[in-house]
């Protein structure tokens, strides 16, 4: 019940604040004659300053320009054998800029330093990156006899969970499977509507409830429907949630329990991850892994300028493999993850 203490502490502070405000107000009213509240003037301030020119601080600009070519530079390092400090610096920069992260980068550099680069730097980095991405990427679509396989989707807000489900629904229905969508995001306004549109597009069945309904019950109903109609797969959406709130993660754990009992069996739990995310992705993965037994990552928005290098750190440290990547907004813009192509894109560009 630390809660009570926290609340009480806040009560004290808030009361103190109230006193401050009151005294301020008093002072204001005692001093000046009660100024009549001025009507809101038509013009407060006209746009005084002209809109400033685009700021091009030269130093930064040059630095950025040089960063664009640095990816090429790593390929041009052709030396064989031990690496010089400059070469290692270039490699470090490439990795850091791809969001691989400080720790993983130093580990990779350490490998490079000790192993040398018998076949050139580029291939040496590629090799160590590839060995970091050696997990099992198969996707389970079948459950035990008599149970309905469920794919559960988790992640923070705005990473593209609902869109990913839409795309996977399309993919699976194309593959001839009958799919039931469970609109388990009952929190975000109109999330169910968004999923409904995907259901209409792909011909998948959908179970939804009103905003604010219990997500567990939506998934439970979806399982019932899937069983009654002998559907092949249930794709269960969940509301985006912060990964640093125990309560929201507890709720997620509960949703997973509901999805995994009775007729349902959770065969895959995907954490959807936005490729633009930086080091926070690692703690997201850690928390979601603990709360919902994440079995794979869907890396979305890889069609932008972001490289998504943090998944290397996630797979190295937590052993969660990337299984799909999102590369666009159309239904077919979801691909199985190819480590080789991914590593090449990390090192090129």
């Amino acid at each position, binding site marked *: *019940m630390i809660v*009570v203490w*926290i*609340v*009480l*502490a*806040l*009560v*004290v*502070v*808030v*009361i*103190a*604040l*109230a*006193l401050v*405000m*009151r*005294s301020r107000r008093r002072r204001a009213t005692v001093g000046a004659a009660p100024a009549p509240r001025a009507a809101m003037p038509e013009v*407060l301030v006209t746009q005084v300053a002209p809109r400033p020119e685009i700021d091009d*601080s030269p*130093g*930064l600009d040059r*630095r*950025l320009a040089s960063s664009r070519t640095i990816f090429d530079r790593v390929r041009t390092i052709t030396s064989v054998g031990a690496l010089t400090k400059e070469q290692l610096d270039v490699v470090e920069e490439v990795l*850091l*800029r791809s*969001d691989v992260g400080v720790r993983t980068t130093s580990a990779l550099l350490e490998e490079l330093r000790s192993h040398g680069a018998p076949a050139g730097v580029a291939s040496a980095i590629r090799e160590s990156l590839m060995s970091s991405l050696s997990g099992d990427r198969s996707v389970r679509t079948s459950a035990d006899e008599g149970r309905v396989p469920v794919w559960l989707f988790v992640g*923070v*807000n705005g990473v*593209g969970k609902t*869109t990913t489900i*839409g795309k996977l629904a399309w993919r699976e229905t194309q593959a001839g499977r009958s799919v039931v969508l469970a609109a388990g995001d009952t929190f*975000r*306004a*109109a*999330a169910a509507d*968004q999923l*409904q*549109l995907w259901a209409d597009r792909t011909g998948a069945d959908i179970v939804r409830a009103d*905003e604010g309904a219990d997500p567990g019950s939506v998934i439970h109903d979806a399982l019932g429907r899937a069983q009654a109609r002998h559907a092949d797969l249930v794709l269960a959406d969940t509301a985006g949630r*912060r*990964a*640093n*709130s*125990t*309560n*929201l993660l507890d709720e997620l754990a509960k949703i997973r329990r509901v999805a995994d009992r009775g007729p349902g069996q959770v065969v895959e739990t995907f954490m959807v991850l*936005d490729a*633009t*995310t930086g080091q*926070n*992705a690692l*703690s997201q993965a850690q928390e979601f892994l603990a709360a919902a037994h994440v079995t794979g990552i869907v890396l979305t*928005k890889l069609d*932008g*300028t*972001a*490289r998504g290098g943090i998944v290397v750190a996630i797979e190295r440290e937590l052993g969660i493999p990337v299984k799909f990547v999102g590369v666009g*907004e159309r239904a077919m813009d979801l691909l199985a993850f190819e480590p080789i192509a991914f590593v090449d894109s990390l090192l090129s560009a």
Partner: protein
Amino acid sequence: MFDSLSGRLERLGASLRSRGRLSDADLAEALAEVRSALLEADVELSVVRAFLDAVAERVRGENVSQSLTPGQHVIKAVHEQLVEVLGGSALKVTYASRPPTVVLLAGLQGAGKTTTAAKLAAWFKQQGRQPYLVGTDLQRPAAVEQLRVLAAQIGVEVYSDNSDPVTVARTGVAEALRLGRDVVIIDTAGRLAIDEALMAEVRAISAATSPHYTFLVIDAVTGQDAVHTARAFHESLELSGVVVTKLDYDARGGAVLSARGVVGRPVVFASTGEKLADFDLFHPDRMASRILGMGDIMSLIEQAERSMDPEAMAESAQRMMSGAFTLDDFMAQLNQIRKMGSLGGLMRLMPGMTRDMREAAKNVDDGQLNKIEAIIRSMTRHERRDPSIIDGSRRSRIARGSGSSVTAVNQLLKQFDQMKKMMKQMGSGSTPQLPGAMGKMAQMAARGAAARGESLPAGFEALASGMKSGAPTAAPAGGAKGKKKKGGRVTPPKQR
């Protein structure tokens, strides 16, 4: 957000504190620490380098002050540089001479534009403006619907139709003019900076509506890519500022520094939670203090000012100090606090909090508050006024009535009692000018700050001196003892 950065700098300070003068090697070591702290916080590499150069220059350029240890010297330089990078050329939101003032929001998919649009509308409304929302995101399924639902919660109208984004924007602004609204917020579809067609579209929207403000909405957990995005949008749209979202997520937020560093435009607004109230102007100096773990009492005061009834609060404060504080008062205050925003968010602003307390506060949510409220509501009026009459059978009745356990009821009563005693003591005790625990907290914070070699954040001193003048004026209000005047009747728009 910057928790880990401040933690690292603190540890760094501790390791340097033990040494004498700051040698070049020490400086290099300190800067290496700062470098990896910044990189781990997702600050972009070029921005990190520029930042380190500037810090090094500061450290070398300044005379080593007698009162600072070398470690503190570095921390001070880092702090100053943070304030400068975050704060330079702040933007003051002004209004167009010929309304409506048009605000355009742009950004990547999933950055939080639609939610930001609604929060921004709520903010303008609070400023006494009449905002109007225009939803041009016809691309993402149900995006306009999401905007409508959020807008309904704050009582703002939304314009949208099914034509095309540019027409919707133009018609929306015209409609706002016709309705006499003075601020128009245009929500746009999320787009990638490299998508030429979509960037042309947002430029066309901008050309059609000539916005007074164009804000890039950026996710605080964005990694190295933040600079590319910011730069591309800036080149296309000439941003006037940045709105950073999801600042409550974690210890990162380097994107703030990156975007700031690369486009040279200020961060204007920050969103720090899921509630529509968790949104405010971004204050660089306060953020810099928060980075270094000094709390942010000014933001707290402002949040309080917006959402509470000070008269009612002062009255119960008086009762609190005289020992007549009841569970009814407690409930009323609980509701006041809830109006201010999420508990975790509030705790982050409080100075003198330990890491553990912050961690604990992060996990307090409305559900737990509901539980406390349920327990209190399950008591009779008598019991609330005088908890001492609650015996065993009453306890089990309360536990049953609130769906909790007798242990929980016991704990609540016990802690309430302890707190009450403490407050009474402090109200009449050693620090008569400062109401109770706050005084202690102020001392704590002062000690902490002194230990770090920092002066108190400006706001804190203001608070302390405010209290000195506040407490005596509160005293006469004590006569109004029995009168029950409850604030906190208004509940915020329900979100979860």
